[in-house]
Every structure is written in C-alpha cells, then in structure tokens.
C-alpha cells in the first residue's frame, strides 16, 4: 500500500511540473485562441538566464527567481512583438500565428543550443535538504512541493487577475472580440503585451523549476508538448483546467510506467487520453475555448 501511495505522490509531483507549464500556455490560448509553442522557448532561455544569474552574479534563490521572472516576461513580450503583433494588426490567418510561435520556439531553443551545447549545466543546491521524509518509506522532494504550491498559487492569482481586475476584464473582452474591445476603449496592444508578460513570467518559473528538478539542457523546451497535452485534458484554454490536466497526465504516466512498463507507457497514456477526450471532449474542467486553427 505504501508503494502505491509513493506512486501517487510521484504522480502528483510530476503532474505539478506539467501544470505549471500548461498554465502559461493556456493563458495565451484563452486569449488569442492559438497554441503558443514559443512558450517552451521562453521557458528554456529563462532557465539558462537564471543559471547565469546564480553562477556569474551569485544571486540567491529568491532574487534569482524575481529577476528571471521579469526577464521571462520581457522576453515573452519581445516574442509577441516580433512574432504576433503585426499578424494581429493585419488580422493574419490563425495558421500564421501557429507557424510563427513554432518558429520562435525553435529559434530560442537554437540560440541556447549554439551557446551552451558543449556542456551540461545544473543549478546549485538552494535548500538545505532536498526532500521531506513523510514516513520511513514515503518521501516527497522539496522541488515538487514548491512546484505544486506555485502551480496552485499561480492559478489563484491568475483567476483573481482575470475575474477581479480591470486588466482581467480587458483580457476577457479581448478574447471575445478584439475589435469591439478596442471600440470600447481597451488599449489592445497594451493588454496583449501584458498578457504575454504574465505568460512569460509563468514560463520563467516553469523553466527554473524544471531545471532544478531535471537538468539544464536545451531539450527542456520539448516539455511544452506535455504542457499542451495537460491543457487539452484540463479543458483547452481553461485556467483551472491546466492544474487538473497536469495532475491527471502526471498520474497517468507514473501509474502506466508501473503497470505496463516504460516502453508501452507513452502509447498507453495517449490512448487513455484519447479515450478520455472521446467521452469528455471539454476536458476535466468542463469548459473549453474554441481554437482559431
């Protein structure tokens, strides 16, 4: 029994990784209705930026996170300016948004590859202990606890912003009809930039935590696919769904690895996801936003 409780903890821990990636991904989807694959690129560049902050400037954990969050936000804004702003203004095809985001993600990843590919990197130990011993055979990693907390807190803050602030009202108005929102006095460019800034901040947190949990390498960007799967399972474009979807995906992967082995696990996990979506296409949360593409 203890073994299965440990698997449950492992699944929730892995799911919290996917949730935090899905969160920023799903925010852009909920507003612009396209899958933003540049999110993975912002994630990986921010993770390496944090590494430089720690190793070259010897910053502690909290200052490093704060600076990197701002960096991630600004990088995401820059990506939006280069990749999406003109497309939005000229009402470009939705497919162009998708292609542009995919190219931006690859570009950012390749910048990291060209700069850092000759060695592996890892963050130093930030905490005096790396895990909590719950019982003699039950443990949970400090990083996993932080991830779960940040995912939950991130969702609560996002929900607050979206539903209780003027900016949130503007974002939601924009997601419904950008022309009408503009006619009503919403500064669309500014709201778009702020949305991407928030998404970039979440990408930066995800990048740092993934680097801490795994290892710093350029292929961290590919985790955005897991984030996308999590957001689909949770309900496309639904903020709280990102958390549920991430947790479900993490639990599925862990239990599938245990029951069918690592070779069959990816196939079985995605088969389960397909069956789940056949019966519940709106995802766990019961709401989804229709994609433009």
């Amino acid at each position, binding site marked *: 029994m203890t073994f299965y409780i440990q698997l449950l903890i492992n699944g929730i821990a892995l799911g919290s990784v996917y949730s935090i990636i899905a969160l920023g991904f799903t925010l852009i989807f909920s507003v612009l209705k396209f899958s933003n694959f540049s999110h993975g690129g912002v994630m990986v560049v921010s993770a390496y930026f944090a590494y430089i902050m720690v190793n070259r400037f010897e910053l502690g954990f909290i200052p490093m996170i704060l600076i990197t969050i701002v960096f991630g936000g600004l990088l995401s804004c820059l990506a939006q300016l280069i990749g999406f702003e003109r497309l939005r203004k000229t009402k470009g095809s939705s497919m162009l948004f998708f292609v542009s985001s995919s190219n931006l993600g690859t570009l950012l990843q390749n910048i990291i590859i060209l700069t850092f*590919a*000759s060695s592996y990197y*890892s963050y130093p130990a930030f905490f005096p202990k790396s895990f909590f011993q719950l019982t003699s055979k039950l443990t949970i990693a400090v990083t996993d606890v932080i991830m779960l907390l940040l995912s939950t807190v991130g969702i609560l803050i996002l929900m607050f912003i979206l539903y209780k602030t003027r900016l949130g009202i503007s974002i939601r108005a924009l997601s419904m009809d950008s022309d009408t929102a503009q006619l009503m006095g919403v500064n669309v460019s500014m709201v778009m930039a702020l949305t991407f800034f928030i998404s970039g901040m979440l990408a930066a947190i995800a990048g740092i935590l993934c680097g801490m949990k795994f290892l710093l390498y350029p292929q961290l960007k590919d985790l955005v696919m897991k984030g996308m799967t999590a957001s689909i399972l949770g309900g496309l474009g639904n903020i709280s769904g990102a958390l549920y979807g991430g947790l479900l995906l993490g639990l599925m992967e862990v239990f599938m690895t245990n029951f069918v082995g690592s070779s069959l696990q990816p196939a079985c996990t995605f088969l389960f996801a397909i069956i789940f979506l056949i019966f519940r296409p709106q995802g766990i949360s019961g709401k989804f936003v229709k994609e433009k593409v």
Partner: protein
Amino acid sequence: MKKILAMALTLALTLVPLTSCNNGSSSQGSGSTGGGSDVIVIGGINDLTGNRSVTGNAINNGVTLAVEEINAKGGVLGKQIKYVVYDNKNDGQETISAYTRLADVDKASAVITTDASGIFMSLIEISSEKKVPVCGMPSDPRAVMDTEGSGETYPYTFLTGQCNAPQQAAIIAKYVSDTTDLTKAALFYDQSNAYAVAYMNGFRDLWESVGGEIVLEETCNANDQDFSTQLSRIRESGAEFICTPNPTAQLVIMVQQAAQLGLNIPYVGAQDMSDPFLSLLDDPSVVGKAYFQASAYMEDPRLQTFCTDYEERFGEPATIKAVNGYDTMYIVAAAIEKAGSADRDAIKSALENDIDGLELLCSENYVEDGATHSPKGLGMAVYEITNGVLEYKTYLEP
C-alpha cells in the same frame, strides 16, 4: 526594395543551414581521394547540437587537438591534415548524409565519428558502398561485426580507443564481485540506447556466472526525465545495488531522484559516471558508493600534458570522451603513415593489419585487432566514488 529584401532574406535562410552544419573548413574535393595534393582530408561526424552534444563536442575537440598537434609537427606523409566535421544532431539519417558528403564531396580518406552505437550502426551499409573507413567508439559489438549472423566483421567500420560494451561490463562486474559482498542487482537502463543494452547483456551474463542475482530489470527511454516509478520499484525489490550504464544526463537526474526517494544504495555504472557527472549533482555526496570503468585514468602523469593543452585550447577540462577522440585521430594518422598514402583501401588495410604497439593515452601498447576490428587486450581504469569523492582504484583487462 521589398523584393530585394525578400530575396536577400531567402538567400540568407538558404545559406545559413548549409554553412552551419559544417563546423570546420570544408574542402571542395579535387576529384582525388584526400582532397588535394597538399592535404589529407579526415572527416568528422559528431553530435554538436543535439541531445548528446556534450559527448559529441568532447570527441570533436579531442580530434581537433590531435589534428593541430600532428599538423604542427609537419603533418602525415609530409601533408597537412584537413579536418572537416559535420553535425549529425544525434540522428542516423543526418549521419548518413554527412558521411555521403564526406565521401563524395570532401573526398575524405577516413572518417572519425561518434561513440553512440545506434548512430554508428547507421553507417554500416553506406560505408560498405562508399568504402571510406569509419573509426569511432561504438561499444556495441554489432557496430563492427555481424554478431547475430555470419560473425564476420563489416569491412569499413572500426571500434577504436576502448573495448566493447560486454567487455566493459565484464570488467566492472568482476571487480564488484571480487571486492564487495554485493549480490542482488537491479538493472536500470535506457532500452533505446544500443550501448546500454549491449552492456547490460554482458553484465547479466557475468554477474549470474559468478553467483550474483538479478532481482529486477527496469528500463527507460532516451527522452524520459522522470524515473521515480522505476526507482520506487527498485526500492521495493530488495536490490543491494543498481547497475546502470545510462548516459550522463539520465544518470544525474536518476541519482537525484533516487536521493529524493531516500534510496541510498551503491551504483555500478559505465564511463558516463566520470567527469562531469559528479559536478552536475546538487550534492555529490548523495552518491554514497559507486563503481565504474573508464577508458583512461585521467590523473595518469602521461595524460597531464594532454589535459593542460586541452583546457588551454577549449577553456574547459578534458573528459574521457575527449581522450577517445584524441586517441582515435592518432590511430588514423598511424594508419595513414603505415599505408604510405591517403588511399582509403590502403588505410583500411593498415587499420586491420598494422596498428600494433602504438603509444596512446588509453594504452602504451595499443593494438587494433584485424579479426574483430576492435582493440586487442585493451583494459580499462576502474574507479570508485565514495560519498561524492572520485578515486582511481586499478586497471583491469577484459
């Protein structure tokens, strides 16, 4: 104006991939083998930007350093060596394309490539067709020999600088069996990694032959990042140690996740446990005990000049993989000397018959066995890690 800009952009986008895949100064083949009268072209194919780029860059740097040394001493047969390298991104198809280009366009006399067995094996067929000898460090014996069929060697593929995976596994299994009381092993390996599978087969055979027990076998895939399920199962199995020949990145993640699960048992691994493995761990002392073998003893006084030169040249410490690349280039250079020309078949013949008593970093008396296309009697350095501290123990032959 817009049209000119668009054309310039298109041209730039077309040229960038063409130039970026070539990390060296490419020779435009003159039509004769070797690229021209004053130079001998040696091709390189390594993962410079993919998920094994750390290893690929180390091998490539080792080769580059050796080429620079050889050229500084006057070259081979009075000719300078021109090293032309392509990035294969750890991809089989890219590897075949690069090899074809080296054979047909650059007119390479020989090719030095990766240690990734699966990738190396993608060259078996094309090398028989193009007839350019390929040297590398693929530890899976199937890379140089049809072990499951005729038992014959493939004509143009050579394992250089280290013994094969089953031999490596036998060395470390024997060492652990002789020096410890460990009996119950859990095997954990990347099933998509040909080296890891070949190593595990060798380890399993020897461990069971000396009375050891395999209590559990767990696998993972190349891109997996979460090993908590497999490690939880190992913790439940009662295994006394984990045998894992996985690549460095996977090892680091695995060891840290094992520590987070409170799993503190010895590891038996391969040479990926050498530098920079320990430096990548949050806390190296989480490795309470580990045993592994490597193709060279990096603290050996004979290697110190190489280590210093390497660090000066590339700004980072030398690793075992750099030693592999460096040694392989010297083996190829020796083969060209023995062949007396840059002719591909002559070099192949020299690699089979004339590499004997060569002084390299991995051995003072290196012999390439023509019958197996692998080193003959080459041993490995055995290391132990105790509470995060690396210590050289001994040198053992297969």
